[in-house]
């Protein structure tokens, strides 16, 4: 991949009508942008490029006198110091400009039409100049002429400006016989590291290195093809970009676009300017701006031209390329993609390093990303991956696949159609939107973390995962923050010895999620990950006292949850002291520990008099946005109810029976309640067993009978993944008789309703997973009849 130019010459995208040997590679690009500025003469089309080089060859073959005349047009008059004329003008302009090669060269004594001095005065500086230099200058002359045309034909203002700038630049260079250098604030290539080429190659290595050599080769070829296309791709203009993305501020893109014009695009047909390949000088940020539209155009292009492709390429492109691009897309827009690390290597090594990840403010509010995780954790300096990659490498695909694809697939029965939801979404306006920023804080029902989320979005607070390292020299800022964390923890946790806090905060195996405000640490959560044991220990957690009660603690914990989901750890364990239990409960921790003791015993730090608490994470929940999402969902449901109400509007007179002394009436006797779709549930009608011990014994008895039933054998224990590998993908709420026995022992069945629901779920799970005529379903049928009989018999449900 060292020489992209040679790649460019390989006919990877065969085109039957290709006109020249070098042409086939540019075929894709040549006809793209069909909907855009067709007047662009500098389009990297082959003909343009060829015409330019033909013209140059022609000019360079001129006799010297003719060359001098041509250069004289762009050379300042040197007859006298005061002469301001900067180009000789032919007093007898040729009638047909294109015929100039047949015309006789103008004589050196011919006076200039504008200043009257002889041509010789204009070209005197060229007398002792070598033929090579003359030819170089002539090349620039041709390019200047072409640019002149470009400036006139271009319709896009931004592009026109750049062409004009380049035109002036080249003119100046001819005058001064210098090398053209694009100056100004554009910077010089490469503009970002790693470049696109490196990123895409990393991507191939990262995603496909486990494939067989042949398939890997295929992916490699696809990546080459993609890079090649990008190099010849015509970018959309800044105004098109602004229009497409609906962003007011396209400044960054405009800078990239200008760079691309000056260093990549124009030099393709204008060889006086130094040329760079797009994929070598730009990095991820440009790819981010252009990928969506480029992918669409590319695929469309291939679809339209599929008949022109070679058969073997056709399969490659039509079957693999879309998938390839989708996967690449994930890595381009994904939040924690390792392929853009400066020192990307295939994850293999272990060992904790000084890592720092930035949790950047959440993206555009109210965007469709609402349902996904919006806050992104991106890695700075590429230091965090090595330690964590062994976990994420394979597992990370799982939750992602779940969130994106299953979100569409898993649709509950009787669910509201998406169109309706969208329609309702349109009508919901944020009540706080109109009233200025302060009012957001005022609403008493605002979520606990609403303020913190808002502050993060505005950049008032930041979240960083940091840690100390013994193997690497630590960044001074990180060390300062670690000291800040140590201070916050020791002030807020006065019962912890300061030395102990210091030891753990600076221990390279511990990391801390730091909350930064005005560059200072105001809170944090120190934690230690145990990837092999599948849990993380929360060690210290504090927010400085004068910043408390602002929702920072909740937002911190939510960020920590998202960080762990990204790293494939789904359990938090912590020993909470009496003051902390309340906080942890609010953050979804419970005293009910699901992680087996053997997994944490000897790993987690044990504290006297503290309570062990656990939090199980759900990888499908975007925690930092959760309260926001739920708020939106509530609004949607409220709107849906309002709609329904307006459809079946009927007002019944109020109930009067209570005034007359009636204490209770059956729900179904309320007028109109059945019309709303409410159904009486037969389970609720029979009275609840009040005494928990009586219920417990009844259920224990019943469960024992069910377990001894001859058809209960398939349901005795949890389904083994080895026997039904996809079982847990299909069955979302697995349950079995053994689990039920444990639940009973743990006094989970506080009402019979819970017990019956679990029993019923055994049956419905079985029917969902197995074909109806299978042995399992037959067992389920008989067992169902049996236990319903028993339930009625025991008076737990009505007959």
């Amino acid at each position, binding site marked *: 991949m060292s020489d992209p130019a040679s790649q460019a010459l390989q006919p990877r995208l065969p085109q039957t009508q290709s006109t020249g040997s070098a042409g086939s590679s540019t075929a894709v690009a040549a006809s793209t942008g069909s909907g855009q500025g067709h007047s662009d003469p500098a389009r990297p089309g082959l003909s343009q490029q060829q015409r330019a080089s033909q013209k140059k060859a022609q000019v360079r073959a001129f006799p010297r006198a003719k060359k001098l005349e041509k250069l004289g047009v762009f050379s300042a008059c040197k007859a006298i110091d005061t002469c301001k004329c900067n180009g000789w003008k032919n007093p007898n302009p040729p009638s047909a400009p294109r015929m100039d090669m047949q015309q006789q060269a103008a004589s050196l004594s011919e006076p200039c039409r504008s200043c009257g001095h002889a041509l010789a005065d204009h070209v005197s500086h060229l007398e002792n100049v070598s033929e090579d230099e003359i030819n170089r200058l002539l090349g620039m002359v041709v390019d200047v002429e072409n640019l002149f045309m470009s400036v006139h034909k271009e319709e896009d203002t931004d592009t026109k400006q750049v062409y004009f700038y380049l035109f002036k630049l080249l003119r100046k260079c001819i005058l001064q016989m210098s090398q053209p250098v694009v100056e100004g604030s554009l910077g010089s290539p490469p503009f970002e590291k790693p470049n696109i080429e490196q990123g895409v190659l990393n991507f191939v290595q990262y995603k496909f290195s486990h494939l067989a050599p042949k398939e890997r080769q295929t992916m490699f070829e696809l990546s080459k093809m993609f890079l090649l296309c990008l190099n010849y791709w015509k970018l959309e203009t800044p105004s098109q970009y602004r229009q497409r993305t609906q962003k007011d501020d396209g400044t960054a893109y405009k800078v990239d676009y200008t760079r691309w014009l000056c260093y990549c695009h124009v030099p393709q047909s204008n060889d006086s300017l130094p040329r760079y390949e797009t994929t070598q000088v730009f990095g991820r940020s440009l790819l981010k701006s252009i990928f969506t539209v480029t992918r669409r155009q590319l695929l469309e292009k291939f679809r339209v031209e599929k008949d022109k492709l070679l058969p073997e390429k056709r399969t490659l492109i039509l079957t693999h390329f879309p998938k390839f691009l989708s996967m690449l897309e994930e890595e381009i827009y994904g939040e924690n993609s390792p392929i853009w690390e400066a020192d990307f290597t295939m994850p293999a090594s272990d060992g904790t390093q000084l890592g720092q990840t930035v949790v950047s403010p959440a993206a555009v509010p109210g965007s469709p990303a609402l349902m996904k995780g919006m806050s992104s954790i991106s890695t700075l300096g590429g230091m965090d991956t090595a330690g964590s990659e062994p976990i994420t490498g394979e597992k990370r695909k799982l939750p992602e696949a779940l969130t994106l694809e299953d979100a569409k697939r898993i649709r509950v029965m009787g669910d509201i159609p998406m169109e309706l939801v969208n329609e309702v979404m349109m009508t919901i306006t944020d009540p706080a939107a109109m009233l200025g920023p*302060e009012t957001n*804080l*005022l609403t008493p029902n605002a979520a606990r973390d609403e303020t913190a989320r808002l502050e993060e979005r505005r950049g008032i607070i930041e979240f960083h995962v940091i840690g100390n390292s013994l193997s690497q020299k630590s960044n001074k800022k990180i060390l300062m923050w670690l000291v800040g964390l140590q201070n916050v923890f020791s002030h807020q946790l006065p019962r912890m010895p300061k030395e102990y806090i210091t030891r753990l905060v600076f221990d390279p195996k511990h990391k801390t999620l730091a909350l930064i405000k005005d560059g200072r640490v105001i809170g944090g959560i120190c934690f230690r990950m145990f990837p092999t044991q599948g849990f993380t220990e929360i060690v210290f957690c504090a927010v400085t*006292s004068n910043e408390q*009660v602002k929702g920072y603690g909740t937002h911190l914990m939510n960020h920590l949850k998202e960080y762990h989901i990204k790293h494939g750890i789904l359990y938090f364990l912590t020993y909470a002291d009496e003051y902390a239990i309340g906080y942890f409960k609010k953050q979804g921790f419970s005293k009910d520990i699901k992680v087996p003791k053997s997994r944490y015993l000897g790993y987690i730090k044990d504290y006297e008099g503290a309570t062990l608490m656990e939090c199980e994470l759900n990888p499908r929940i975007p925690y930092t946005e959760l309260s926001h999402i739920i708020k939106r969902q509530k609004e949607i449901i409220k709107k849906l109810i309002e709609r329904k109400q307006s459809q079946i509007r009927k007002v019944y007179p109020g109930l009067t029976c209570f005034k007359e002394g009636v204490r209770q009436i059956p729900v179904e006797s309320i007028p109109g309640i059945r019309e709303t779709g409410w159904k009486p549930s037969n389970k609720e009608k029979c009275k609840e067993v009040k005494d928990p011990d009586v219920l417990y014994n009844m259920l224990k008895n019943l469960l024992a009978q069910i377990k001894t039933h001859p058809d209960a054998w398939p349901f005795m224990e949890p389904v083994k993944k080895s026997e039904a590998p996809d079982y847990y993908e299909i069955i979302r709420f697995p349950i079995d008789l053994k689990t039920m026995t444990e639940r009973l022992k743990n006094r989970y069945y506080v009402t019979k309703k819970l017990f019956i629901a679990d029993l019923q779920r055994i049956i419905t799970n079985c029917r969902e997973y197995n074909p109806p005529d299978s042995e399992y379903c037959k067992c389920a049928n008989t067992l169902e009849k049996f236990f319903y009989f028993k339930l009625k018999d025991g008076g737990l449900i009505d007959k």
Partner: protein
Amino acid sequence: MQTENKSWSFFFVPQSNILEDERQRRFVLTDASVSVSSASPYYRTKLRGLYTTAKADAEAECSILRHALDKIAEIKSLLEERRIAAKMAGVYSDGDPPRKTMRRGVLMTLLQQSAMTLPLWIGKPGESPPPLCGATPASSDYVAKQGDKVAARVKTTDGDEQWILAEVVSYNHGTNKYEVDDIDEEGKERHTLSRRRIIPLPQWKANSETDPEALFSKDQLVLALYPQTTCFYRALIHTPPHRPQDDYSVLFEDTSYADGYSPPLNVAQRYVVACKENKKK
């Protein structure tokens, strides 16, 4: 409260315009005085007439603004009355289910809002700030009204004394005792306290530009509400507010720091009151 805050900023604008006008007039005056000796009696009379009109205009404008400020104060007090009425109704109607307590974060935001919207005292020229403006204490016979916020010294459950933020419920003139409610609904306690245990909070902000004497000065010992809590603690003034909307920066007494004081923290004028006892605990 929001709209009120906006009205404040609105009224500041003409305020500065008045100053601007005043400056221009003075300029005219000095300009004129140069030539006044040579001016004819006609111009002298005319000039005097113009001055009189300008003065009357400025006074009219000033009184309109003051009138508007009074209106705002009136609206505010109506809102306050309504709030108290609602609170009383909530307390005395047993039928309704108990109101859910406000989340602490929301309470803190409300306290901040109330500090922010505390009116700024704008006196007439030469008028000195009234009691309860900035650091100016209330008169000795002052009785806080129902609904007023005060710092109240209460006994905590573990026997210690603590200054809390409270709201006046009533004052008994016979016993000279206040009944106050802890502002923190989690506490939900009503205290009966003698008047020396009550310090009314300022009702106006003092303007640091015009009435700096009505502000606490550097190193003065005060009681200040610790940020994000409802308790007052002893603190030293680190820096007084620079501009009318600024907060004090104070150093709280805090033994957990080596020098005995916390790093500087911001507290609004509303929540800084004079500390009576000067001896350290």
